[in-house]
C-alpha cells in the first residue's frame, strides 16, 4: 500500500512537470493551430537564460525565473513576427518544416554560445533536499513543480474562460474572419497568445530542469514527449492536457516501477490505445 502511494506521488510529480512544460504547446497547437515542434527550443532558451542568470550573474532563483520568462518572450517576439506569422493556416507539413528549422537553429546557436555541457539552475535552499512525507521522502522541488502546475492550470483557465482576452482568443480561433469583423485585432491576439505560450515554455523549462536537464539537444530530445502529451490531452484543452499528463505520468511511472524493461512498450501502447479511442484527445474540441 505504501508503495502504491509512493509511486503515486512520483507519478503526480512527473505528470505535473510534464504539464507545466507542455501546456504552452497545447495553446499554440490547439488555439493557434500551429504544429510547433520548436516548443522545446523555447523551453530550452528559458532554461539557459535562468542558468546564466543564476550561475554567472548571481541572481536569485525567483528573479532568474522572471528574467528568463521575459527574456524568452523578447527573443520570441521577432520570431513570431517574421517566421510564425507566415505559417498560420499553412499545411501541417509546412509548419513541421519551419519549426524543425527553427529548432535546428536554436540548438546550433545554444551549442555555440553555451557549449555542449549540461547546465544547471541551482535551487534555493528551501527547494533543495528532501521533504519527509511520513511514509517516504520527496524532493522539495517536486512539490514546488506540483504547485506550479496547479497554479498554471488555474491561471490559464481564468485567462481563457474569464477574461475579455480569453473571449477574443476563443472568437479568433473559432472564426478569425468573423472576429476581425467584430473589431478583434486577431494579429495582436495571436501575438499575445504566442507570447503566453512561449513564456509558459520557458517557465516549464526552468521548473522541469531537475528532471529534464538543460543541454543543447534538449529541444530535440523531448520534442516527441511534448507532442504526445498534447495530442493525448486534446490540443487546446487545459483540463485535457492536465488529465493527459497525470494519466501518462501514472502509466510511465508505474510501468517503470513494475516492468522497467518494457517501460517504453507500455508507454507507447497506451498512447496508441488512447489516441485510437479518443482521436481528438481525451478532452479535445470537436472541431
Amino acid at each position: 500500500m505504501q508503495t502504491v502511494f509512493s509511486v503515486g506521488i512520483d507519478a503526480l510529480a512527473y505528470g505535473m512537470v510534464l504539464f507545466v512544460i507542455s501546456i504552452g504547446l497545447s495553446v499554440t497547437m490547439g488555439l493557434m493551430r500551429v504544429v510547433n515542434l520548436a516548443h522545446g527550443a523555447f523551453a530550452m532558451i528559458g532554461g539557459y537564460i535562468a542558468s546564466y542568470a543564476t550561475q554567472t550573474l548571481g541572481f536569485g532563483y525567483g528573479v532568474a525565473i522572471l528574467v528568463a520568462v521575459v527574456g524568452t518572450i523578447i527573443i520570441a517576439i521577432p520570431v513570431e513576427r517574421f517566421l510564425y506569422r507566415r505559417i498560420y493556416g499553412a499545411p501541417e507539413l509546412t509548419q513541421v518544416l519551419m519549426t524543425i528549422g527553427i529548432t535546428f537553429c536554436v540548438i546550433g546557436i545554444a551549442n555555440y554560445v553555451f557549449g555542449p555541457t549540461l547546465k544547471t539552475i541551482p535551487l534555493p535552499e528551501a527547494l533543495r533536499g528532501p521533504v519527509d512525507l511520513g511514509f517516504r521522502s520527496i524532493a522539495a522541488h517536486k512539490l514546488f513543480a506540483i504547485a506550479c502546475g496547479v497554479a498554471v492550470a488555474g491561471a490559464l483557465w481564468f485567462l481563457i474562460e474569464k477574461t475579455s482576452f480569453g473571449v477574443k482568443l476563443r472568437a479568433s480561433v473559432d472564426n478569425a474572419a468573423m472576429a476581425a469583423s467584430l473589431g478583434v485585432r486577431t494579429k495582436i491576439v495571436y501575438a499575445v497568445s504566442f507570447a503566453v505560450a512561449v513564456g509558459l515554455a520557458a517557465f516549464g523549462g526552468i521548473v522541469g530542469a531537475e528532471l529534464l536537464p538543460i543541454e543543447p539537444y534538449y529541444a530535440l530530445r523531448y520534442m516527441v514527449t511534448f507532442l504526445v502529451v498534447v495530442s493525448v490531452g486534446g490540443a487546446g484543452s487545459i483540463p485535457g492536457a492536465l488529465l493527459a499528463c497525470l494519466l501518462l505520468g501514472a502509466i510511465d511511472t508505474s510501468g517503470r516501477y513494475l516492468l522497467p524493461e518494457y517501460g517504453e512498450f507500455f508507454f507507447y501502447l497506451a498512447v496508441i490505445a488512447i489516441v485510437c479511442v479518443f482521436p481528438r484527445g481525451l478532452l479535445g474540441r470537436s472541431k
Partner: protein
Amino acid sequence: MAAIENTSAAKPAATRPNWLVRDLVGLAVILAVAAIGYFLFPNNLALLTRILGVALLVLSIDLVTGFCGVATLGHAALFGAGAYASGIAAVHFGITDPLLMVVVGAIGGALAGIVSGAVILRGHGLAQLVLSIAVVHLFHEAANKASAYTGGSDGLSGISPDPIFGMFAFDLWGRTAYGFAVALVAIAFVVLRLITRSPFGMLCRGIKEDPIRIRAMGASVQGTLLKMYVISGAVAGVGGALNAISTQVVGLDSLSFTLSAEALVMLVLGGTGSLYGALIGTVSFMWFEDFVSAANPFHWLTIVGALLIAVVLFAPRGLYGSAQTLLDRFRGDGK
C-alpha cells in the same frame, strides 16, 4: 503531376506517348545525374549510395504522404524492417544473394507496412502523427529487445553479400554497390510512375483530395490506403535492404524517429506529391548536409535549420513544386 496528366489527356490517342516520352526523359535524367555523380565524385560513391538508399525511403513516404495525404513521422519503421529482414536473412539464414536479400527486404517492409498502416490509418492529422511516432518507437524498442537476432544497440554485423549474379563483388570503392543502388532506384522510379498513374493511383489521389467523395463512389478508403501502405513498405524495404547490403551492418538508427523525421523533411523540402520532388529533396538535403558538416562540423546544424526556414519562406511548395509553379507561371505569361 496533375499538369502532366492534363496535357496527356487532351487528345488521348495523339498524346499518349507524350507521358511515355516524359517518363523516359525523366528516367534518362536520373541515369545521367547518376553517371555524372559517378564521374564527378568517384571517391564518394559510398555517400552517393547512401543517398540513394534514403531516396527510396523518401519516395516511399511520398507514396503515402504526397499521394494519399497521410501524415507520418514514423516511416523509418518500414525502412528498418526491410534492412533488418534482409540482414537477418543473411546472417542467420544464409541468404546472401543480393537480389534475394532485396526481395526479403521488400517483403519485410511490406509486412511492416501492414502493421503500421493498420495503426496509423486509425487517426487523422495530429493524432495520425502521434500514432506514427508511437509505432516507430515500438519497432525500435522491439529491435533493441530482440538482440539475439538484431544485435541490439551494437548493430547487426557480419552481413556479407555474394557478388551480384556471381560476377560483381562489392568492392572497397563502392562501385558495385553504387551501380546496384542506381539500378534499384531507377526500377523503383519506373514502377512508381506506373503505379501513380494507374487506376489505383488515381483512386489514391482522389482520397487525398476528398475521401468523402471517394466513399460516395463506393470505394473503400481504408482498404485503399492500407494497400498503398504495403506498396510503400515494399519500396522502403528495398531501400533498407540496399542499405544493409551496401554497408553490411544494420543499426537501430535505421528504425529511429530521427530518420523518419529527417526523411519527411527531405520530402517536404523537395515537394510532396511528385516523385521528382522526393528525389530532388533527398539529394539536395543530404548533399547539403554532407557539404556543410564537412565544412563546419560544429555549427552545420544552424545552417541546415536556416535552409529549412528559407525554403518555407521562399519556396513554400518545396524546391521542385515551387520551381514547377514558377515554370507554369512563366509559360502562362508566354501564352
